[in-house]
């Protein structure tokens, strides 16, 4: 196609009227010449004109042919078809609204879930070349520990010995820092990070500089870097902030930098201080750090892994006691962050995809039903010369229009749905999750919209365009009914089968979640208020100051009216805080390095077990006399007791914590309590041991208070007590224990909820589908039913005929669905708790529920059929 050609076509499109006028003129000229000739040959003007017009027998048709020769026929026709389609759709608005809503919900749900998955699985992390970032974890394969946090000396060896990374840095999780800002004690989440962390991430500060290697040492670490939001919020974006001194947890630190807007690391941290660790204090046995590295250009993860294996073996040889059996694992940062969510998100995408398919099937069904009603229209068009392709095109354009309108509405819905979805997530979203709409989401939405239009449009278009002129014009639609109703039956079977699969999936998820919720976590979370307090080490320097503060606070809280018991713990169960330590039991072989068993080490104040509803099975609770200088004592849980002293009382036995070579003092067991789920509701890997806070006076404790009524009513009172003791101390993470437990299982809850909503939607669609087909069947077979009744069939027989037909379709759908569900639900295995992916109870229950629902969907049309009056039915038509 050359330029003039293009121009001509363009002109044909834009100057249609002008060109039509030219065509008229051309024809007019021809007529005139004919008339002149005829007159010359002796005809009267009248005769001449008549003869000329007669020779132009197909004037309009040839004009049309001339127009189509312009080569813009397709576009012009499409424009015409679109306007025609819009008219048709507007005329049958009830149908149009149902279809558009169905599609909008289907496409909306898909777009929302896709945006969700996109924000977690697909979007690159907010750092330059983030695909080159990797996380280095330690592993202890012999103990089945896949991921262990890093010890400081190991990190230093990795950093100094590797040749595959551009840089390696480390940080110490997320900590809470207290800052007094505007007279209010505020808790800021921040991190201790090693020298070089920002360089590994390739993020430069907005103001000032990052930490130097010298500042990563104790005594020289009096500096701090602020996050953008913190700087704006609390320092009014002061551009002269660099060099100023601020109070961070009662320690004066100089601000040396401000990070750019939007930068957070890790998770939600917005304040950074130097790690300043020393290998004397943080030995190879103290695993607590997270390491992050940037791969050198051209180095793959596998190459890095190979070299790290070599380095780990070398460290193991040099430090057999501490590092025996320890390895290193190199994983991409993105995978490390998003891995937890991947399975669930992929399955959810599959689920919404199925819902959309069911919606498509339903719409296809509606289209077929409508096509039947429109058979005369198509037959007429065919008789007037429309080809099969033209009728198909018309139908496909109608489908696409419906899909596009539905898709647009769905896209808008998805924005709202995603917002709703995010409110169901009770945790603070980590820095790297970003759910805003990007090109990928738009593209996905458009793609599924077009695909949807094609899927539900193709079958009806193929079916309908196969018009038999004679049949249709004569009989008004019953001719092709047989084929079409077979197609519709097939669609109904598909719908039932697919919704069965979804319902079984939802049933399993809900069953699993209910079981998870009923798990006995070993404590009574009802009416317990929790709040976290972190004492600034700079202010509470001495151990006695810290124990004294908490002792006083407990007394104050206990004396509040309505508070039945109060205590505190260093690690609150199920809120993610853990402290694993290795255990040595007197009389058992000493295991070193990565081989010693690990226990959950919990520091508590007296009264903890009573407050939390944990039963004391033997011995005694801690009391105020378990002080700094008194004998070392511990309380263990029943798991540990059963494991080491199955046939005798553990009271009086001795255990030791920490690496054996550290020779920590022996602790005498003074009590045994019931086991609780500390790390996860699903299961705990470690048994729990408890230590008195007076012996290990950590700075941060979570207050727990059992109240006689709604614990939320006590928040104000507890805060007031804290302020009276220390007006600068921030109180954070105020929540009821029930909320803490609910948060611990938010993922299974969210997935079960989404599954149930989607499967419910699919069920509803399937029921509408089967109802539609049955109602249509009754309508088209009224005549036949009339004959049957005239010949002696009872209303009951007719009812049975219709219901029987519907239930037959349902049965086939259920059988196929059960097969599909058995094949597909095993993919959900990793999401299920204590529930088999082929749980027969769920399969039977869901099949029954679906069959009963289908029966009711058939019931209405069947009753209508049974009420047919044979006289009227036969006179009909």
């Amino acid at each position: 196609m050359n330029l003039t050609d293009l121009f001509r076509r363009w002109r044909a499109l834009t100057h249609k009227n002008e060109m039509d006028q030219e065509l008229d003129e051309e024809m007019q000229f021809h007529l005139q010449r004919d008339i002149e000739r005829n007159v010359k040959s002796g005809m009267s003007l009248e005769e001449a004109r008549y003869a000329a017009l007669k020779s132009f027998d197909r004037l309009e048709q040839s004009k049309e042919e001339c127009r189509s020769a312009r080569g813009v026929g397709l576009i012009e026709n499409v424009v015409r078809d679109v306007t025609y389609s819009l008219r048709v759709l507007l005329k049958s608005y009830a149908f149009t609204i149902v279809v558009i809503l169905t599609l909008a919900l289907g496409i909306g749900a898909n777009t929302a879930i896709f945006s969700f998955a996109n924000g977690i699985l697909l979007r690159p992390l907010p750092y330059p070349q983030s695909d080159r970032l990797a996380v280095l974890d330690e592993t202890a394969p012999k103990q089945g520990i896949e991921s262990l946090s890093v010890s400081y000396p190991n990190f230093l060896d990795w950093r100094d010995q590797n040749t595959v990374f551009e840089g390696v840095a480390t940080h110490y999780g997320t900590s809470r820092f207290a800052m007094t800002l505007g007279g209010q004690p505020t808790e800021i989440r921040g991190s201790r990070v090693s020298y070089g962390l920002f360089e590994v991430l390739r993020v430069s500060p907005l103001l000032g500089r990052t930490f130097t290697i010298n500042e990563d040492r104790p005594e020289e670490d009096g500096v701090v870097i602020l996050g953008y939001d913190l700087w704006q919020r609390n320092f009014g974006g002061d551009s002269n902030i660099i060099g100023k001194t601020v109070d961070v947890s009662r320690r004066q630190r100089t601000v040396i930098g401000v990070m750019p807007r939007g930068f957070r690391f890790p998770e939600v941290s917005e304040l950074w201080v130097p790690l300043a660790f020393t290998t004397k204090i943080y030995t190879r046995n103290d695993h607590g750090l997270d390491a992050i590295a940037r791969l050198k250009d051209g180095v793959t993860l596998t190459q890095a892994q190979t070299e790290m294996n070599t380095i780990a073996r070398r460290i193991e040889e040099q430090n057999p006691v501490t590092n025996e059996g320890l390895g290193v694992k190199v994983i991409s940062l993105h995978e490390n962050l998003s891995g937890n969510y991947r399975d669930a998100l992929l399955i959810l995408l599959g689920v919404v995809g199925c819902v959309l398919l069911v919606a498509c099937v339903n719409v296809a069904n509606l289209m077929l039903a409508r096509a039947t009603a429109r058979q005369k229209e198509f037959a007429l068009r065919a008789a007037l010369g429309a080809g099969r392709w033209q009728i198909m095109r018309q139908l496909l354009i109608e489908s696409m229009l419906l899909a596009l309108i539905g898709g647009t509405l769905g896209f808008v819905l998805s924005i709202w749905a995603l917002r709703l979805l995010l409110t169901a997530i009770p945790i603070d979203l980590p820095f790297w999750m970003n759910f805003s709409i990007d090109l990928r989401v738009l593209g996905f939405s458009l793609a599924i919209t077009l695909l949807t239009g094609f899927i539900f449009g193709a079958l009806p278009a193929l079916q309908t365009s196969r018009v038999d002129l004679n049949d249709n014009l004569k009989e008004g639609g019953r001719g092709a009914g047989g084929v079409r109703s077979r197609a519709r039956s097939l669609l109904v079977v598909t719908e039932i089968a697919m919704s069965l699969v979804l319902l079984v999936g939802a049933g399993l998820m809900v069953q699993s979640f209910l079981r998870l919720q009923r798990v006995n976590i070993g404590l009574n979370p009802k009416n317990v208020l929790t709040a976290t307090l972190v004492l600034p080490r700079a202010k509470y320097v001495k151990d006695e100051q810290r124990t004294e503060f908490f002792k006083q606070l407990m007394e104050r809280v206990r004396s509040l009216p309505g508070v039945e018991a109060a205590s505190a713990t260093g690690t609150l169960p199920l809120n993610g805080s853990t402290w694993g330590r290795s255990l040595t039991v007197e009389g058992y072989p000493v295991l070193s390095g990565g081989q010693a068993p690990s226990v959950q080490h919990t520091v508590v104040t007296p009264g903890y077990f009573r407050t939390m509803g944990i039963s004391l099975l033997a011995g005694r609770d801690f009391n105020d006399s378990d002080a700094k200088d008194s004998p070392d004592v511990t309380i263990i849980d029943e798991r540990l007791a059963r494991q080491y002293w199955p046939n005798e009382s553990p009271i009086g036995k001795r255990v030791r914590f920490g690496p054996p070579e550290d020779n920590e003092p022996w602790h005498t067991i003074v009590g045994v309590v019931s086991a609780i789920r500390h790390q996860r509701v699903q299961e705990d890997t470690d048994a729990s041991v408890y230590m008195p806070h007076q012996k290990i006076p950590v700075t941060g404790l979570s207050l727990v208070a059992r109240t006689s009524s709604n614990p939320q009513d006590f928040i104000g009172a507890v805060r007031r007590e804290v302020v009276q003791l220390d007006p600068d101390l921030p109180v954070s993470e105020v929540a009821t224990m029930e909320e803490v437990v609910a948060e611990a299982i938010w993922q299974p809850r969210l997935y079960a909820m989404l599954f149930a909503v989607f499967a419910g939607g699919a069920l509803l669609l399937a029921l509408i589908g089967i109802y539609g087909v049955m109602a249509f069947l009754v309508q088209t077979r009224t005549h036949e039913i009339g004959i049957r009744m005239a010949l002696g069939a009872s209303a009951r027989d007719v009812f049975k005929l219709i219901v029987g037909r519907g239930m037959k379709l349902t049965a086939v759908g259920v059988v196929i669905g059960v097969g599909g569900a058995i094949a597909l639900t095993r993919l959900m295995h990793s999401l299920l708790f204590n529930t088999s992916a082929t749980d027969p109870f769920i399969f039977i229950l869901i099949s029954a529920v679906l069959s009963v629902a289908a029966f009711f969907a058939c019931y209405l049309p069947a009753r209508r059929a049974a009420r047919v009056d044979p006289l009227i039915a036969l006179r009909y038509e």
Partner: protein
Amino acid sequence: MNKQQGDLFKQGTLELLILRLLRSGSLNGWDIMQRIELLSAEVLTVTPGALYPALHRLEARGLISAVWRPSDNNRKAKFYGLTTNGRKQLETQRKQWEQFSDAIALVLRDA
């Protein structure tokens, strides 16, 4: 118009005749129609209904081009002329036609 003759007048044939007629100069639609009848000794007749779509198709394919100018009787008419492409097309089609008619003649003679 004789229906039998009309059926023989397949699209391609008519287009070939139009191209041939335009080789010697530009003509308007009416002229072309007259000439086909004249040159074929009134064996072949063309209806406007066949002629004009054929002309517009050729124009769309860039084989002929059209201008509006006054005709003999001073009324404005649309005159068609051959383009370079049209000339080439005429040559190829004429060769094809000759081969085809030779082949038909051969079969008819020998059979």
